[in-house]
């Protein structure tokens, strides 16, 4: 059997896209209850997938190929959204980031010679990511665990005296509503309309204020201030950052409880289901690959976690406005002055872009292979990249509008998990598998779309539609196999 050394990289590249890196880092930064568990799950899911026996896409059922292509498109969407988020966090127009990502993915698709090697960009991305994280560690002169310890020891996550938000004021970069936990005098640095929602007992009152530069309002605990993207504001030094957790202790040890555990189980099962389909190696890994693939995964994901810790150590104000989408990208500007801050920021941005190129190239390979296996129409046989380019166009258009990239990634993984039913149901025959996968995918899409309209109990389950759709697909495949078998016997 042919065992190209990059088979391991191809599997890794599908997983380690910018959406995973940004989400892990942002959750760690924000002190999300499931942050350490997410970090572990993001690693264990692909490792479990790598342990599967290799399988080529040649024997894919047509319906499985369709679901695989659909999930690849959704994953590409999640990664393009993540690049858009990164651009917004850096203060660049979101659409510019989306356009750069789209152009990179298009070049990979059109330039055949590059396409085969582009998966290797994931290595470059991981090296840049390590460089950016090591740079943050070097600047602060603390190891990640020491940064965690120091952050967790902070009595309050407040504005520093030399913060740009305090000295000259800044714009949020995207429309946002800030919730204040204590009395806080906020000064307008540009003419703008502020909407303040005050709460008096059970009643809420919303007032609009037209403010000129220099005007100030004092917020009370519980007040909410809605600001436009370009409204420049100045906060008070030593006051808590609106929306941030109250203290380092709350950041280090947030209230988790059973709800967080249930939520985590849904996430991890969806991730594992998606990884089992999307990352299944097509060839047996070489000895080098058997070491390189898991090692690359752990380095990339631990780098993301460390980036989140360093961002939290740099300051909770990174969670304000657009920079909250990728706080670690703004951390160098908070800790350093140009040109060092610019160099570190560019390194981090290049890491995300290189990871994206690797992911796009690997997803393209999966789509082209799946299309080839599904006996496509003549046009697609002659031009196997056509479907991928069409998907890319749709994804770029959809990504201009902001969306939760992580939720989109979970949707892609869940949809892919529906195709996983093919493997245990193989004994029922390809037609039965096709029916099962189609029904499972249809239920998945239906639950995902109908979630806002469902009653509470069902909606909670529909938050992770794969948990229902995957067993359903398998049951349908088994039932269809029985029916088709009985029909064949009666025909004979």
């Amino acid at each position, binding site marked *: 059997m042919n*065992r190209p050394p990059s088979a391991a990289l191809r599997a890794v590249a599908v997983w380690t896209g910018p959406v995973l890196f940004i989400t892990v880092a942002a959750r760690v930064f924000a002190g999300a*209850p*499931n942050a*350490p*568990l997410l*970090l*572990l*799950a993001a*690693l*264990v899911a692909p*490792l*479990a997938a*790598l*342990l599967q026996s290799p399988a080529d896409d040649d024997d894919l059922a047509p319906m499985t190929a369709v679901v695989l292509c659909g999930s690849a498109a959704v994953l590409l969407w999640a990664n393009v959204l993540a690049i858009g988020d990164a651009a917004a966090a850096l203060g660049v127009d979101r659409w510019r980031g989306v356009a750069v990502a789209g152009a990179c993915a298009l070049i990979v698709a059109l330039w055949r010679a590059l396409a085969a090697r582009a998966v290797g960009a994931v290595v470059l991305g991981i090296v840049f990511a390590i460089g950016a994280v090591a740079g943050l560690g070097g600047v602060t002169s603390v190891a990640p*665990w*020491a940064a*965690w*310890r120091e952050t*967790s*020891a902070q009595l309050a996550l407040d504005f520093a005296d030399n913060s740009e938000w305090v000295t000259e004021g800044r714009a949020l970069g995207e429309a946002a509503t800030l919730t204040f936990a204590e009395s806080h005098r906020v000064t307008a640095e540009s003419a703008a309309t502020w909407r303040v929602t005050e709460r008096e007992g059970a009643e809420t009152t919303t007032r609009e204020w037209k403010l000129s530069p220099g005007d100030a309002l004092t917020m009370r605990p519980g007040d909410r201030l809605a600001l436009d993207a370009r409204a420049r504001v100045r906060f008070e030094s030593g006051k808590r950052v609106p929306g941030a957790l109250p203290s380092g202790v709350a950041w*280090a*040890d947030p209230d*988790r*409880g*059973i709800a*967080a*555990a249930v939520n*985590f*189980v849904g996430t*991890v099962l969806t991730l594992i289901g998606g990884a089992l389909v999307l990352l299944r190696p097509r060839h*047996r*890994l*070489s*000895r080098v*690959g*058997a*070491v390189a*693939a*898991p*090692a690359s*995964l*752990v380095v990339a*994901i*631990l780098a993301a*976690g460390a980036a989140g810790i360093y961002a939290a150590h740099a300051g909770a104000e990174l969670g304000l406005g657009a920079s909250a989408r990728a706080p670690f990208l703004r951390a160098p500007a908070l800790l350093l002055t140009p040109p060092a801050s610019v160099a570190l920021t560019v390194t981090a941005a290049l890491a995300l872009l290189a990871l994206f190129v690797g992911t796009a190239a690997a997803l393209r390979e999966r789509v082209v292979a799946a299309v080839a296996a599904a006996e496509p129409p003549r046009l697609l046989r002659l031009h196997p990249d056509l479907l991928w380019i069409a998907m890319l166009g749709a994804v770029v258009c959809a990504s201009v509008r902001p969306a939760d990239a992580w939720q989109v990634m979970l949707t892609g993984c869940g949809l892919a998990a529906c195709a996983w039913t093919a493997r245990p149901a193989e004994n029922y025959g390809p037609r039965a598998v096709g029916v099962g996968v189609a029904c499972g995918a249809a239920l998945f899409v239906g639950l995902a779309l109908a979630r806002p309209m469902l009653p509470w109990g069902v909606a909670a389950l529909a938050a992770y539609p794969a948990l229902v759709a995957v067993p359903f697909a398998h049951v349908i495949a088994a039932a269809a196999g029985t029916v088709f078998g009985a029909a064949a016997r009666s025909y004979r």
Partner: protein
Amino acid sequence: MLKAVSQRAAVVTLCTLLAVAIVLAADPLHLGGVRVAGVSLLWWYAGVAAPLAAVAVTIVALALRS
């Protein structure tokens, strides 16, 4: 035979590593919050020990197979 056993053992180990993390996070006794060298036990486990163990187990299983 050895390959199949090592593969199954690796999968079971990965599942166990995840399950322990969930127990540490949701434990009513709050063991995950206990600080060791200033860092919580949950973070030492989910951020250092479990990832390294998971990778080591996977590498061994994949190396035996290849």
